[in-house]
């Protein structure tokens, strides 16, 4: 059995660690590094609870070896929060897009990829994009509402040239602020 020294960025922090070849990315994140946003649900690539963004792609971290993530940039659902909730997290909160919350970190990661690619998805497109994220609680309606609301707010912010904070009405951008 081989072990490997890998280096990856998680939620903006560079992490160096040694993993067994068989270590799954989700276990490296949760158990070795303490990033507990991705949950372990089905363990078989079906439920999406373990979804994180890896180099901008939503991926199921239970079906990727940690060693395959060497050199990549991983964002977990917790990484979207800045000072407060980000617009997608805020929309899930406002629209009651969660009940127990087990599926939520995965929903957020897949939603981020969707909204990065398509700022104006239809409800059908939202459902199609979230096919790999199973929710046993909400019945999905409120999740689709949340994604629509997040998309609306992001479009409004795009139009204003602002970076939305998600925490209520956005403050006027500071001069010279990023984006």
């Amino acid at each position, binding site marked *: 059995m081989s072990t490997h020294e890998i280096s990856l960025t998680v939620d903006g922090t560079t992490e160096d660690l040694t993993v067994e070849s068989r270590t799954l990315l989700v276990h490296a994140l949760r158990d070795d590094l303490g990033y507990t946003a991705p949950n372990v649900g089905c363990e078989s*690539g079906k439920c999406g609870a373990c979804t994180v963004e890896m180099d901008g792609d939503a991926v199921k971290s239970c079906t990727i070896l940690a060693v395959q993530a060497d050199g990549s940039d991983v964002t977990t659902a917790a990484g979207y929060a800045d000072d407060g909730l980000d617009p997608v997290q805020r929309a899930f909160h406002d629209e009651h897009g969660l009940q127990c919350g087990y599926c939520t970190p995965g929903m957020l990661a897949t939603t981020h990829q969707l909204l990065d690619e398509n700022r104006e998805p239809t409800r059908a497109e939202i459902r199609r994009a979230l096919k790999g994220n199973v929710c046993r609680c909400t019945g999905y309606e409120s999740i689709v509402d949340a994604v629509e609301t997040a998309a609306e707010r992001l479009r409004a912010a795009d139009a204003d040239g602002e970076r939305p904070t998600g925490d209520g009405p956005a403050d006027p951008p500071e001069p010279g602020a990023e984006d």
Partner: protein
Amino acid sequence: MFPAEFDYERAASVSEALALLDEHADADVEILAGGHSLVPAMKNRGREPDVVVDLDVPALDAVNALDDRTVVGALTTYATLVDSGAVRSTVPLVAEAASEVGDTQIRNRGTIGGNLAAAHPGADLPAAVLASDATILLRNRDGKREVGATDFFRGDGETAVERGELLTGVRVPHADDGGFAYARKTHPATGYAMVGVAAVVETGGGGGGDDGSEGVVSSARVAATGAVDRAVRLPSVEDSLVDEPLDAATIDAAASEATDDIDTGRLRSDAHASGEFRGELLETYVGRALETAADRAAGDTPTA
């Protein structure tokens, strides 16, 4: 759930991968592409290889559209196939089949080469490469080898890929004017196709006119996945289309031949669908694929 212990090797080029396969010729070796068949199989201990050779070869993640054919590298993901303008415009059937695979996350990781090599009986890409009359490109220590799609799939998980050999890409000829479609019924438990049908219908004669004189079929290729232990062409369906106008009567007649080439005893059966039911689904989905192909041939439906 996690895999049994194994040694992991990363190959940055085709020659490095071949050298690693050679070096470990006596061991139980698995090639790792997107990992979305292999990692689940290793987690449930269906596969316990000694060595895993990870293909990290940028040159195999490429689409090359030429005048009459498009070459797709083995490591091209489904997401890339779906997003690639070159794939959509030259070999749209491949993009359409890729868009049906699994879900967003699976399409981000899984590769066309892995899909064909894994040869799951309900996988989507095998039907598309069969109906496209594609050629599978292989490399081994002695050089290159090519296998036509019709000779490639040998059974559940069995293909023409030999030990020590690498699938490097797929060469897909461009179809003549006409229509194409991939239609599938998703298996409720596995997410794979319960039955999927890919069709390419070329209409040489006549245009899709207002008078109903849809183009006459000059050639047709129709392939099914999910029905038996491997993806197969359906020659009786194809034959009944050729030289006929691509209209509802022709499509009905062709769909009724859906199981003619299949030994019904070979139809797959599981808790969700008996072989008999799969046979009926096959007829329905041959009809649906051909209807969409006909609409596209007549210019009524936008392409993928």
